[in-house]
């Protein structure tokens, strides 16, 4: 068995019932570092162009991080990949928790699900043994019931269960896969793909262990990573208050998406913040993923009032905005309840909140009425509206069936200009980042292969608020003054570096909070962790980031093969055409930046010309054709993706040299 790996890949064909174990080709995996990277390679090879995302020809891949199951800090990540049903393009979603480590302890690094079962089934993997089991009794059950029933049936409370709820069964295009109740592989509809395969759950239990090649060297690198991460004070705030610690800060910056992105502020935002969860007694305990050193995950419960008994993981920052401020409320109990519904029905809270607020705006404008909604009055912040719609969506009932396809499809159905407040691109609802005032984020969101969100490229460094971020920007661009979020200058350079680093982080199995949100685990240190764990020495900083770029280009190629081009790299209409109120009536005339003010400073991105300028620079930096957005043979060849280039060439989807 190669070091750091369990050593096997498991293929399950649900159409035929065939189960095949294959030895892992370590060299092929490490070319793509692992997890997200190797998943992308498998996806490229296994999914034919034009495949129906909800058809049996799509595959669903669970890929563990190469360091997952070791003591490398924050190494509990697993990537779930498929062709995405929301976008019809590439989809990866990263999830924490303990499921991935358990899969490795059970003997497998990768699980590939192919075909479609004739009737509902679940998969049981126990210490190498694999069974396809009948799931008739589980079908129709929510995530909580399903997980409990499997635990009870196996008589093992420590079994790790990845499952879908009713939303996945009903193929809601933003259905999630929930890992052991609280961790969500959420974005883009991976749960709908699992539902389309009649696969209710994958239960995993293992007692094996993962060995590393050079234990002493690995241990030193682990301790160095821990100490470097704890040097950052934000590790404390993350532990104390979780991701929703950021709510009040972002509201103060005037960039907290509220009222369906019409506003960057909401009064009393503090009531849906991490500190409030603690002080008001909702937070019952803090939780960490496998090998986590931050424990940013929350467990909250309501013990009195109309939502007594509601509980669950989170709510995270994204959820506070999506189901709270975005829907016009700062009622934290309502958000906790709505979050609970999403988690037990198995729905992405970001997209679920997005469809609700899109509908609320339509109701306000008189385009959607109570006749459409089975009598629900969709007033901003109204509990019956938020909770009622979420139930309708999960069950695809009434107006919920229209919303279950996401805001793009809903706007196509309703029409009357409603696409202008459908905050999506490529078919995915934008995550809760105000990209009008953070230009690097705007570029990163526009080019993200899975659609506009932050979990592909976190360019927090561009804000310039942290010394580590400023040093990183100086390293990337040669000048610290580019650590300034409202300039067009050098965004392409900053975004591309972060793409490389984020891809490597995902692939190795670490959390981005260790690398691009804090800067304790540098690429150099990440390379040492990987080298000492695998015993493969060629992973120095540059080759690690180069592998990240290989992953990114392969993901891009998947989309190109499906017909995507520059025209698809855009941002939601509202965020390109409507002006956001500035954070204060006071102007910005004292702006100089601690290291001097960069050129091309704008108040916000509000024209296609600004985005086009950044896109031009970004494509050129990548070696892609800036007119079409297509890749070149040489670019792909330099990344050792010659076979990918050849296939695109055969399809006429390669840029001319």
């Amino acid at each position, binding site marked *: 068995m190669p070091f750091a790996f369990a050593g096997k890949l498991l293929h399950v064909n649900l159409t035929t019932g065939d189960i095949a174990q294959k030895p892992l080709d370590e060299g092929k995996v490490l070319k793509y570092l692992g997890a997200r990277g190797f998943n992308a390679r498998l996806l490229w090879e296994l999914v034919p162009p034009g495949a129906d995302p909800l058809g049996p020809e799509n595959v669903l891949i669970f890929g563990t991080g190469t360091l997952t199951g070791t003591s490398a800090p924050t190494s509990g990540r697993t990537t779930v990949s498929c062709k995405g049903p929301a976008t019809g393009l590439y989809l990866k979603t990263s999830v924490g928790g303990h499921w991935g480590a358990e899969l490795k302890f059970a003997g497998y690094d990768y699980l590939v699900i192919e075909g479609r079962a004739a009737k509902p089934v679940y998969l049981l993997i126990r210490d190498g043994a694999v069974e396809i089991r009948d799931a008739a009794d589980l079908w129709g059950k929510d995530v909580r019931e399903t997980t409990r029933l499997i635990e009870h049936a196996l008589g093992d409370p420590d079994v790790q269960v990845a499952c879908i709820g009713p939303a996945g069964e009903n193929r809601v295009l933003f259905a999630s896969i929930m890992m052991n109740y609280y961790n969500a592989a959420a974005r883009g509809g991976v749960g709908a793909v699992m539902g389309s395969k009649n696969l209710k759950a994958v239960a995993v239990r293992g007692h094996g262990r993962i060995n590393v090649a050079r234990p002493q060297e690995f241990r030193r690198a682990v301790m160095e990573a821990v100490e470097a991460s704890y040097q*950052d*004070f*934000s590790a*404390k*705030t*993350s*532990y*104390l*208050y979780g*991701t*929703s*610690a*950021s709510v*009040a*800060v*972002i509201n*103060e*910056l*005037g960039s907290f998406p509220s009222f369906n992105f019409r506003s960057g502020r909401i009064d009393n935002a*503090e*009531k849906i*913040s991490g*500190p*409030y969860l*603690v*002080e*008001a007694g909702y937070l019952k305990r803090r939780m960490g993923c496998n090998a986590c050193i931050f424990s*940013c995950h929350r467990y909250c419960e309501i013990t009195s009032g109309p939502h007594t008994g509601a509980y669950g993981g989170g709510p*995270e*920052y*994204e959820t506070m905005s999506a189901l709270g401020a975005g829907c016009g409320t700062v009622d934290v109990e309502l958000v906790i309840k709505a979050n609970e519904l999403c988690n037990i029905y198995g729905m992405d809270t970001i997209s679920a909140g997005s469809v609700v607020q899109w509908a609320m705006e339509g109701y306000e404008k008189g385009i959607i009425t109570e006749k459409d909604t089975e009598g629900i009055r969709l007033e901003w912040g109204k509990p019956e509206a938020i909770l009622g719609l979420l139930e309708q969506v999960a069950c695809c009932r009434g107006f919920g069936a229209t919303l279950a396809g996401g805001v793009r499809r809903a706007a196509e159905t309703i029409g009357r200009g409603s696409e202008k407040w459908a905050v999506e691109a490529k078919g995915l609802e934008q995550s*809760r*980042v105000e990209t009008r005032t953070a230009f690097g984020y705007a570029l990163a969101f526009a080019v993200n292969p899975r659609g506009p969100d*932050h979990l592909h490229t*976190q360019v*927090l460094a561009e*804000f*310039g*608020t*942290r*010394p580590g971020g*400023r040093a990183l920007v100086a390293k990337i661009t040669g000048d610290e003054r580019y*650590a*300034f*979020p*409202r300039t067009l200058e050098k965004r392409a350079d900053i975004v591309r570096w972060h793409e490389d680093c984020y891809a490597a982080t995902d692939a190795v199995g670490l959390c*981005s*909070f260790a690398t691009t*949100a*804090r800067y304790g685990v540098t690429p150099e240190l990440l390379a040492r962790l990987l080298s000492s764990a695998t015993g493969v020495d060629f992973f120095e900083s540059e080759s690690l980031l180069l592998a990240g770029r290989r992953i990114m280009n392969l993901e891009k190629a998947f989309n190109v093969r499906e017909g995507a081009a520059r025209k698809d790299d855009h941002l939601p209409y509202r965020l390109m055409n409507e002006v956001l109120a*500035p*954070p*204060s009536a*006071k102007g*910005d005339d*004292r*702006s*100089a*930046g*601690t290291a001097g003010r960069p050129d091309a400073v704008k108040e916000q991105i509000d024209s296609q010309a600004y985005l086009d300028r950044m896109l031009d620079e970004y494509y050129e930096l990548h070696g892609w054709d800036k007119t079409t957005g297509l890749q070149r043979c040489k670019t792909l060849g330099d990344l050792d993706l010659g076979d990918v280039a050849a296939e695109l060439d055969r399809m006429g989807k390669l840029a001319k040299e």
Partner: protein
Amino acid sequence: MAKTNRAINVSLKLFNRAFPERVSLTLPQGARVRDFMAKVKKKRFGAMSRKNSSLSLEDMEQDDLLLILNGRPIQNLQGYDTPLEDGDVLAVFPVMAGG
């Protein structure tokens, strides 16, 4: 009419708990962010360590604080040298990252 030698009023929003503590201070014209912070250095953050002990602003490194002046991080202005004006609002947070 030109303004000369007037004092300025600057508001502090100290996010030491979920809801900020609000204080208004009078400073001489020409005061900068660092002058303001020197005046409030004894203010404390609650529960800012794993042992739940509080920390005063002067206990904390500058880099461990996030200062936002009228909705702009001071690093995007002139840092601690940013000149203050009458009616400014300075929000002070412990640093945080990720969302």
